[in-house]
């Protein structure tokens, strides 16, 4: 197997108690305590007002983390292919569609319908950033972060291009919340590059692993990791936050995990 590897040039994070990557890095490196706080989604930046009115939480979440990652690396997103990974998409929108279809009238809002596609955040990302490169939107249930990372690393390796990975999840309202209890919104973006650069923070190298996935030492963070599929990235983010990162094993499918060698660039 060809070595699947990439340099991380930018990171974006938004989640409970994690307002952005610098704040998350302080917590994850042990420099500050994690304090529980509901995820605050900012208004959707860069979108024309017509689109802005139509956007739900998944669009606000993905725009926030995606833009944080590319801006921190001073990279123009307009030509960067993107990979969006989510275990469930827009749960609120899905709930409202199912409620309408269970009612007598069944009159769906056209906007609700076009927002129901799994790749809606990718569509809005293109409109917001003018990015005409390929965008992929995928799902692998609880393995969605790992699946997105694999897709992004394959694109980096084969197309020899930067790739922006955005993994995100939001919570469902009831009654879906009971069967899929995702507690809050969490998003992470990694700008990956095929070669070293001044912007590179760390280098990742991929391998399969049968070891158990690394857990977070803090029980509250471990709860986030296990309850939100996109937060399966937390052990990797914790390594990136350290001065001297090492290897990490992250969750993927049953019986298959992803081992990442992480090396700092500075």
């Amino acid at each position, binding site marked *: 197997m060809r070595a699947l590897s990439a340099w991380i040039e930018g990171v974006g994070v938004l989640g409970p108690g994690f307002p952005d990557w610098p704040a998350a890095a302080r917590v994850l490196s042990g420099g500050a305590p994690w304090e529980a706080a509901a995820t605050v989604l900012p208004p959707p930046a860069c979108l024309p007002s017509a689109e802005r009115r139509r956007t739900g939480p998944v669009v606000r979440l993905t725009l926030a983390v995606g833009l944080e990652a590319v801006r921190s690396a001073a990279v123009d997103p307009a030509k960067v292919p993107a990979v969006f990974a989510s275990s469930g998409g827009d749960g609120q929108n899905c709930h409202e569609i199912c409620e309408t279809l269970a009612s007598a009238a069944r009159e769906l809002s056209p906007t609700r*319908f*076009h927002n129901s596609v799994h790749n809606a955040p990718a569509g809005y990302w293109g409109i917001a950033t003018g990015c005409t490169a390929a965008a992929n939107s995928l799902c692998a249930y609880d393995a969605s972060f790992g699946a997105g990372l694999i897709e992004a690393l394959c694109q980096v390796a084969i197309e020899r291009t930067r790739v922006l990975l955005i993994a995100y999840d939001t919570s469902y309202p009831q009654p879906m919340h009971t069967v899929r209890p995702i507690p809050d919104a969490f998003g992470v973006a990694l700008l990956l590059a095929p070669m070293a650069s001044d912007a590179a923070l760390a280098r990742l190298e991929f391998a399969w692993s049968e070891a158990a996935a690394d857990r977070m030492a803090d029980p509250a963070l471990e709860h986030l990791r296990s309850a939100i599929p996109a937060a399966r990235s937390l052990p990797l983010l914790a390594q990136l936050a350290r001065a001297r990162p090492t290897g990490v094993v992250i969750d993927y499918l049953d019986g298959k995990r992803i081992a990442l060698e992480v090396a700092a660039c500075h």
Partner: protein
Amino acid sequence: MNPLALTSFTATSAIGCGLEATRASLRAQRSGLAPCRFETVSLDTCVGEVPGVDRSGLPREFAEFECRNNRLAWLALAQDGFTAQVAASAARYGASRVGVFLGTSTSGILETELAYRRRDPQTGALPEGFSYHGAHNTFSLAAFVQRALRLAGPAVVISCACSSSAKVFASAARAIEAGLIDAAVVGGVDSLCLTTLYGFHALQLVSRTPCRPFDAARDGISIGEAAAFALLERAEGTTNAGSVRLVGTGESSDAYHMSAPPPDGRGARAAMLQALAAARLEPPDIGYINFHGTGTPSNDAAEGAAVASVLGAEVPGSSTKGATGHTLGAAGALEAVICALALEGEFMPAGVNTKQVDPALPVTYLRENRRARLTRVMSNSFGFGGSNCCLILARAG
């Protein structure tokens, strides 16, 4: 890109269950579209329904995956010896070296729609036995197919609306090229549900009559359902590799609008040019194009402009959606299989239902089947969110 062999493939749609029936319908220029009698739907439209999907359930060991979408997948996997071919590949490479890359837009949402009608009147709770992971979740399809085929490699669902199961070919090709896997089951499955029937109706994109792609009087889509699969392996050194190859893929984004293409089709054009470059081909090398051709006025106009700007107005083409309906997340894989049948069977399938080709569209649209020893064909798939994908298939030798 390095060519990949389609060592086995199969399709099940409104025009037939398996390749033999599909081929016969294409040869006879038969449409599978009929007035909608699906579930409790009261819309004046036609659909491409696959008969008998719900006739039998899944085997008991797969009970957690029970839903119409997975039943359609199961029906399709049983055709054309596909499962046995996958088993042979898994034996050759190891089950963990065979990936699963599938497209769907709505997965098992029909189960959720029905469950919402049976919520507890007091608590609002969903009924007992509702399976989020096995039926509702977008990944349900790949989880089920991976289990049914006894594979243990990477598995993913790509859900980019109506380009989903074209894009799986590109992702699988990269994973094989990167050495992550040695073979991949690619495909797409989408099944009738209320979300898409009422949703496209709300957008006023649905025709009352069987859809007429590229017709001067075209007035919308007909929704269909389908399951189509292919087994991809490296073409070099593969024994018994069959005669069809995947030689080029191209992917782009419109960055324009959530549910409409730019009128000049520039995103579609970019995907086609990329596919040609990946295949190291020139426009005259393409002998037939299977249009995305949904049958809405603006989609076909944008695609016609894009195709003419890349391939010229002379290359013969058709949309097979007049026969199958628009099978949404399954369309890319279904139409790739139809292209494979065209290459093997030495014919170009006509676009049925279309009576008078729109003179404003700069394309050579086939209203009758044509015999031709094709060597390279192109298939377009475009989706909501401005997601574009183009595949080029070729005949070996």
